[in-house]
C-alpha cells in the first residue's frame, strides 16, 4: 500500500530499535547505515519525548558506519567490520548491538556473518536487521528485543518464582516511559515481586542477560512487544500476559488483582495494597473536589494517541474524572486483527459513554474527520455537541484543540511543549499526576 504519511507519530524500525538501545546505559548501538539516520532518529526521539536528549552514548556520539556511495556499490561489510572493531576499543560498554538501515538491508550486506566473527571471539555483541522500510518504531522495538532474547539473554537459567519482566512501553515513543516503569515497578515490589524494567536510567545491561530467570512477562500493550514476548516464551519458556497500561485507581486495581492471581499472592495482601494506595490517591483528590465542582471541570474528551494510550486515557477520563469521551483517534499503523484487539478493549467502557473510534495515522485527516463528524452530529446540544471539550494528544494535536475550542494537554508522542523527566501517568501516582496536570491546564489562564 502506498499512502503519504503526514506528521507521523512514530519513527521507522531503525528509530525504534535505536531509542530502545540508547535508553539503557552502557548498551551501545552501532548503526550500519547512511550518515543521517542515527542523528535524525535521535533528534526525533529526543525533541519529541519532552526533550529527552543525550544519554550514555547517543545523539552525536552514536557509532555509525556512515555508509556512502562506495559502500552501496561495493558492499559495506568491510566498513562495518572496521567500525565494530574501533567501536569496541573506543567505547566503554557492556553490550553492543549492530542495527541496520534501509540501504544496507537493501544491498544485502551479510551483517550477521560479520557480527558472528566477533561473537566467536567472545565479544558481547548482537545484531538485528532493522531497515526502516520494515515497519515503524514498534517493529524496531520488537526486532531489537528479539535479538537480545535470542542472542544475549542466557538460556537455561533457573526460574525465579518472584521475578517479572515488563515490556510494551517503547522508550521515547511512550514519552513518560521512565516515570511509568518506575511506578509499575514500585507497585509490583509492594506485592513482593522483583521487577526488571530494563529501560529506566538506573537499569543495567546485566538485567538483560539474566532476564530469562523471570517466571512471567507482563506486556503493557496489545500491540507493542507482543512479537518479542512470544519469542521470549519460545526461547526461554517464560509465559506472558497483556494488560492495558493502567492509569488511575480503577485500572490499577484490576491490574494488581490480575497479577496477584497469577502469582497466587494472598488476596488479603493485594487488597491491603489497593486500600493503601486508594487512601493516598483520594487524600489529595478529595480536596480538589471543591474546584472540580465549583468551576465545573467536566469536559467532553477527544483522545489522540497510540494503541496503548488511546484506550488507557479514555478509560481514565471516563472512570476517574467523570468526563464524557467523544472521539478517540488511534494513530498506530495496524492491520485488521490488531485494530479489532484495540477496539475490543473499549467494551470495558459503559455503552452510553463509549467514544467514536477513528483509526488514522495522518494528523490533518484526524482533524477533518472529527470536524466533519461534528457537523453531521444531531444532538440535543445543538450546534455545539461537545462543548466544553478537552484534547489529550500530542503537541501536533493542539490545532485540533483550537478548532473545537478545547483545552489541551500533550501526553502522547510527540511532546514538544513540555519537558519530561520522571513524570509518569501509570498507576496511582500517575493517575494523580495526570489529574493535577489536566486541571492545572484548565486553570492556567488565571
Amino acid at each position, binding site marked *: 500500500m502506498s499512502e503519504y504519511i503526514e506528521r507521523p507519530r512514530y519513527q521507522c524500525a531503525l528509530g525504534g530499535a535505536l531509542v530502545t538501545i540508547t535508553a539503557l546505559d552502557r548498551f551501545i548501538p552501532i548503526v550500519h547505515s547512511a550518515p543521517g539516520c542515527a542523528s535524525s532518529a535521535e533528534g526525533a526521539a529526543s525533541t519529541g519525548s519532552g526533550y529527552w536528549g543525550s544519554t550514555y552514548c547517543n545523539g552525536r556520539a552514536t557509532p555509525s558506519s556512515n555508509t556512502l556511495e562506495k559502500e552501496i556499490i561495493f558492499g559495506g561489510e568491510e566498513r562495518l567490520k572496521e567500525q565494530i572493531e574501533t567501536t569496541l576499543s573506543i567505547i566503554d560498554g557492556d553490550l553492543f548491538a549492530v542495527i541496520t538501515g534501509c540501504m544496507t538491508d537493501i544491498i544485502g550486506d551479510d551483517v550477521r556473518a560479520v557480527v558472528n566473527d566477533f561473537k566467536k571471539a567472545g565479544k558481547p555483541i548482537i545484531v538485528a536487521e532493522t531497515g526502516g522500510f520494515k515497519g515503524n518504531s514498534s517493529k524496531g522495538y520488537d526486532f531489537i528485543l528479539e535479538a537480545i532474547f535470542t542472542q544475549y539473554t542466557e538460556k537455561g537459567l533457573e526460574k525465579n518464582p518472584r521475578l517479572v519482566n515488563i515490556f510494551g512501553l517503547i522508550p521515547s515513543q511512550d514519552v513518560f516511559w521512565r516515570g511509568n516503569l518506575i511506578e509499575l515497578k514500585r507497585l509490583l515490589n509492594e506485592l513482593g515481586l522483583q521487577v526488571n524494567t530494563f529501560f529506566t536510567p538506573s537499569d543495567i545491561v546485566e538485567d538483560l542477560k539474566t532476564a530469562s530467570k523471570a517466571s512471567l512477562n507482563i506486556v503493557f500493550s496489545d500491540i507493542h512487544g507482543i512479537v518479542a514476548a512470544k519469542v521470549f516464551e519460545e526461547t526461554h519458556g517464560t509465559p506472558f500476559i497483556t494488560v492495558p497500561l493502567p492509569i488511575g485507581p*480503577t485500572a490499577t486495581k484490576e491490574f494488581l488483582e490480575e497479577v496477584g492471581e497469577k502469582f497466587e499472592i494472598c488476596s488479603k495482601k493485594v487488597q491491603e495494597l489497593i486500600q493503601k494506595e*486508594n487512601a493516598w490517591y483520594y487524600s489529595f483528590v478529595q480536596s480538589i473536589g471543591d474546584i472540580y465542582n465549583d468551576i465545573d471541570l*467536566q469536559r467532553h474528551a477527544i483522545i489522540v494517541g497510540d494503541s496503548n494510550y488511546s484506550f488507557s486515557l479514555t478509560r481514565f477520563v471516563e472512570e476517574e474524572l467523570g468526563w464524557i469521551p467523544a472521539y478517540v483517534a488511534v494513530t498506530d499503523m495496524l492491520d485488521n486483527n490488531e485494530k479489532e484487539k484495540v477496539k475490543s478493549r473499549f467494551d470495558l467502557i459503559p455503552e452510553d459513554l463509549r467514544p467514536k473510534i477513528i483509526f488514522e495515522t495522518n494528523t490533518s485527516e484526524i482533524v477533518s474527520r472529527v470536524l466533519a463528524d461534528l457537523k453531521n452530529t444531531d444532538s440535543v446540544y*445543538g450546534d455545539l455537541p461537545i462543548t466544553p471539550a478537552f484534547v489529550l494528544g500530542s503537541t501536533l494535536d493542539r490545532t485540533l484543540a483550537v478548532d473545537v475550542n478545547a483545552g489541551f494537554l500533550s501526553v502522547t508522542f510527540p511532546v514538544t511543549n513540555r519537558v519530561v523527566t520522571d513524570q509518569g501517568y501509570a498507576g496511582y501516582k500517575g493517575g494523580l499526576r495526570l489529574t493535577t496536570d489536566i486541571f492545572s491546564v484548565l486553570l492556567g489562564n488565571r
Partner: protein
Amino acid sequence: MTINLNNSSVETRENRLGSIAGYNGDLHDLANQTKCGTLKDRERCFTQSSSCDAGCALGQLASITDVAVINHAPSGCTGMASQTIVNHTQLAAKRGIPYTTVFLGTDMNEQDTVFGATESLKEIIIKTYQRYKPNAIFIGTSCVSGIIGEDVDSIVDELKDEIPVPIAAVHCEGFKSKVWATGFDASDHAILTSIVKPPKKKNNIINFKNFNESARKEIIKIFANFGVKPFFLYANTTVEELTHMSESLATVSICGTLGTYLGNGLEEKYGVPYVKSINPLGIVGFETWLREIGKVINKQEDIENYIEKERAIYLPKIEGVKKELKGLRAVLGMGASYAFQVTRVLQELGIEVVWVASWHFDSKYDNGEIPPHIDYLVENSPNNFKVSVTDQQNFEILNILNKYKPDIYFGRHPGTTVWAIKQGTAALFLGDEFKTFGYRGTLDFAQTILDTIKNRSFEKNLAARITLPYTEWWYKQDSSSLLKEEVE
C-alpha cells in the same frame, strides 16, 4: 414602610421583613404560615460556620471600581480582601475598565480593643483619602467595633466637611443579624443615603442589580429592542454612575432577595419604579419579568413580539433536552430567592424537586408583599415539596441528601457542592447568576444538567473511598431534629 433612610444603621431583616434562619416543613405550610403571619424562627442547638453580613456588605461595596472600603476590625475580618480585590480586578479587566478600589482594614489589636480606636480610625480615614484618592469612602464596622461601642457615626459626621468625597458608615457587625443577607441591605443603605443624588432629568436606563454581569452583552442587545439600556450594579460601576440611579426609568434585579432594599428604596424616595415580579430565571420567569418591564416603559407590544420570536427559536430545543431529563430528582441549597426560583426552572424542565433548602427566608419584601415566587409555586408546583430553612448548615444538607438520594444537588456557594459529591450525589454549582436567565439560559442549564448526570463516576468513586465527618448516629436522625422549638 420598612425602609428608613434617616437612621445610620439599616434595620435587620428579621425585624424588617420577618426573615427567619431556621424552619422545617413543606411549601404549603411555609406559604400558609407566611400569609397568616405565624411564621416563627427556630434556633438550632448545633450550628456550623455560616457567613456574616459584613462579608456580604463590604464585598458588595468593594465591587464598585473607585472607592475605599475601610474595615474597622482586626486583621482576620479583612482576610476576605485579597479574594474580593482579585475577583473584581478580573471582572474589570474583562471589560477593559480601570479598577482602583482599595479594601483596607484597621488591624485592630488588643490595645485598640481595650482602649478604643476612634482617634486612629479618624486618622486612617484622612490618610486613606490622601493616599488613594477614592471617590467615596465606606467604613464598615465589625463585631469588635460594635461590642466595644466605637462611635463610628460621630467620626463620619466630624469628617464630612473635611473630606471632599462622600463618606458613610456601614453598620454590618457580624453578630448584628441572624440573616447575613442583611449585609446586602446595609450596602444598599449606604449607597442610598450617601451616593444617590436627587434626579435632574430622566434617561432611558434601567438599573439592573446583579452580581457579576456575565450576561451583559446579551442583555444590552435584548433591551435595545425596546429602546432602553441596562445599568448593571454594583460590579464595574463608578461612584459617579451610581449618583444618577434616581434618574432611571426603572430598577430590576436578578434576584428578589438581592434587590428588595435598593429597588424599593429608589421607588419610595425618588419614584423610580421597581419591577417586583418573579425574576427572569426560566421561561415563565423571563416572560413575566419582561412583560412587567413592558408595562413600566410602555412597550408592551414590542415585548410580546419579542417573546413570540424567541419562543419559536428556543422552545423546540428546550423540549428536545427535556426528554433526556425525565425522571430526575433534585435537591437545592441556595439563598432565599434562588432556591425557590431555580426550583421553578427545574419544574419547567420536568425535573422533580424533592427538597428545597433555603439559606434564609424573607416573609415579605420591602414593599410589604410576600415574595411573588412563593405564590407562584403554591399555585403551580406539581408537588408539595419539603422545605427547610437551613442557613448553609452542612450537617442538615448531608443528612437530607443521604435520606432522599436525589440524582443531583444544586448549590450556589463555593465549597457547598463538593460535600454532595463526596457523599456520592452528582452536583451542579450554579455560581453564575445568569446561568438560567431567559430562554438561552434555560437551554444552557438543561444541557449542563445533562452533562452532569451523564457520567457520575467521579462522585461514585470519590464517595467510595473517602470518609465523611458525621457519625452514624446523626444519619439516623431526622435532619430537623436539632432545630429548637419556635422563638417568640
